[in-house]
């Protein structure tokens, strides 16, 4: 008797456990659980938890689960594409990088979100433009990142406004013994494209025009790249910077080895701390200089979108609207120092204490923000452009050769994807 019972009891238990494990999620009705995926490390996690708690308090019976995803943009992108292309219904709400929205929208992975006109008018125009695909808005800007010029107030009387002034200021600083006139992110990665986008705005060039046609080999664009190449050739920007990303440029500027730096707002907060910074209290922030065009700031930052397969799209949209409301943006700025995407928040007195630079300056820079091309092929086009920019900067090709090679590759990629003849 004992033997058979000892034999089947564990089997039964296992089978039961298996049934429970398989059956429970399927039959338990959980209509009001939303999943949210985004950056939840450090201060950002605190903000998200607080704000979600308030959302739940305002919506009794609704629970929001936070799905932790990697903070590295490339890894998160891969993960999202795997989930969404498999039509997973969760996460319901996704934090997107500014360059992914057209890709996900064109693929049909995220739902359009319409804003009431007064809200739409409140957002910085560039942040909305970056999140539109074929005329409709697919993601709501959450916070803004912009490229700007950091300059040493003890080395020059005012921030340079034009490329010519930048050149003179850099040479002046080098004559006074500062090793580098200017540092920017010159490694072959996405950051290089953001720098290029700012020089492009300065010369009046673009990567794609409004119709999606490649114009990166036009004379204005060649001029932009030629200015960057000259800066390297003349020793204003060190050759070492051609292998640098954000942090290496910050170290150089923070240690007093560079007179100017192009970087994102995060650097300001870190460099204001005198214990680790040799330039605390001796630097200012200004819009990027320009030539024949206008000053431009590459637009970065995060947006929120709703999964097209979400089981509760309306509730998910509700969460997006809540998280992108002015009160939440102000709180985010106060805790994490991230720039609000709505202009109205810049009138709040509390914002001045929260941001690393004066809100009026921040607003002035963001008004000049230029989005990167809105195309589902962005990653591929950017990859092609990065290679050619880097070839020109490292002297392997002239600016004109490099950009014409980049333009050829981009045109081929767009034709291969059938986007050139797609209905629009």
């Amino acid at each position, binding site marked *: 008797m004992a033997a058979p019972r000892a034999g089947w009891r564990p089997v039964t238990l296992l089978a039961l456990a298996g049934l429970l494990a398989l059956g429970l999620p399927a039959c338990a009705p959980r209509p009001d659980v939303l999943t949210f995926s985004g950056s939840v490390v450090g201060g950002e996690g605190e903000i998200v938890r607080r704000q979600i708690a308030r959302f739940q308090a305002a919506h009794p019976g609704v629970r929001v689960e936070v799905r932790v995803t990697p903070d590295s943009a*490339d890894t998160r992108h*891969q993960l999202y*594409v795997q989930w969404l*292309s498999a039509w997973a219904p969760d996460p319901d709400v996704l934090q997107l990088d500014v360059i992914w929205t057209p*890709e996900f929208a*064109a*693929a*049909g992975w995220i739902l359009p979100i319409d804003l009431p006109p007064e809200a739409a008018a409140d957002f910085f125009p560039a942040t909305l433009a970056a999140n539109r695909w074929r005329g409709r808005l697919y993601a709501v800007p959450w916070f803004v990142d912009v490229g700007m010029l950091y300059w040493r107030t003890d080395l020059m009387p005012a921030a340079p406004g034009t490329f010519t002034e930048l050149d003179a200021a850099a040479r002046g600083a080098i004559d006074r013994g500062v090793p580098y006139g200017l540092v920017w992110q*010159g*490694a*072959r*990665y996405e950051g290089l494209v953001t720098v290029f986008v700012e020089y492009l705005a300065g010369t009046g060039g673009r990567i794609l025009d409004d119709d999606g046609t490649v114009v990166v080999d036009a004379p204005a664009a060649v001029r932009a790249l030629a200015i960057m190449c000259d800066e390297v050739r003349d020793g204003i920007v*060190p*050759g*070492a910077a*051609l*292998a640098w990303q954000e942090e*290496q440029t910050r170290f*150089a500027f923070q240690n007093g080895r560079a007179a100017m730096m192009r970087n994102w707002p995060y650097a300001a907060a870190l460099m204001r701390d005198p214990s680790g910074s040799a330039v605390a209290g001796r630097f200012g922030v200004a819009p990027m200089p320009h030539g024949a065009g206008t000053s431009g700031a590459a637009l970065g930052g995060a947006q929120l979108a709703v999964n097209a397969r979400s089981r509760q799209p309306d509730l998910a949209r509700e969460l997006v609207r809540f998280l992108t409301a002015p009160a939440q943006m102000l709180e985010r700025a106060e805790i994490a120092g991230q720039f609000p995407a709505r202009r109205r928040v810049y009138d709040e007195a509390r914002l001045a204490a929260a941001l690393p630079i004066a809100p009026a300056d921040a607003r002035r820079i963001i008004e000049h923000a230029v989005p990167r091309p809105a195309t*589902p*092929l962005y*990653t*591929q086009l950017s*990859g092609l452009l990065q*290679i*050619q920019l*880097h*070839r020109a*900067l*490292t002297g*392997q*090709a002239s600016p004109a050769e490099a950009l014409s090679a980049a333009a050829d590759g981009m045109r081929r990629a767009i034709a291969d*994807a*059938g986007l050139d003849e797609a209905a629009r």
Partner: protein
Amino acid sequence: MSTPAGPPNGTNPAGALAAREARLAWRLMLPALVVLAFVAVVPLGATVWESLHRHDLRLPWTGRPFVGLANYVTAAADTRVRTALGHTLGFTAVSVALELVLGLALALGLDALARGRGLARVVVLLPWALPTVVAALVWRFMFDSESGIVNAIAASVAPALAIDWLAHPWAAWVPVVLGDVWKTTPFVALLLLAGLQAIDASLYEAARLDGASAWRRFAHITLPLLRPAIVVALIFRTLDAFRVFDLVYVLTGGGPGTATEVLSLTAFTALLQDLRFGYGSALSVIVFAVSFGLALVYVRAIGARTGR
């Protein structure tokens, strides 16, 4: 032992035994073959099948149509792929040659050690034990033109020697090749050391009695008898070097431009960055086919040497 009793019908008993042994051998190998089929043949087949499709995750509206060899045609016409193939072959030739020469020298040194051989072997193996990504990061820091130790030393010798290593299309290969040689020479040395220790010491004694010089003993005893170990080391290193990825990915990312881009990196970009699964699979199959071809050449070489 007496001969086993053969079947009474007059067939060759030794042949029957061999056949039975062969059947047993197949049966014993079957589980291993099944596992191999699942972990190697099936994924490989799936990759080949995928490479015959146009499959772009970013463009779901294009579907996944069968396109035959179109991806291979695109790859063959792509200068980026051809350049990367050239880089990969050049990197393989240079780094494996250096590893072989240095590894042989190291093995001879270790073999000649009278005492402390065990300790020396452990010390020599240390670079091999370090994860490649960590080693590659350290090499990148050392070759950073602003704060790296290489330029600090170079500048103290002659300021002209301090160059922007990672921004120069040729100089960027130096840390890549050095990193690979530093990391894998110990592996070659240990393989060759095992080969050296298998050589009968009496051969050397006889040669010495006949008055052969150290060079003649090396050229006529050591090298020929070490040949099988050398070929094994070459197979391992060539295949590994041809598929190099992590070292280049971390150290230069394939830059400046695409000056140090190797084939695995091109495939990685197509697959995981551009999400072009069909095309990326085709590139992966090309990497596989070339390294498999190289392996066949080596296996032939061993066969020719051992007279089979």
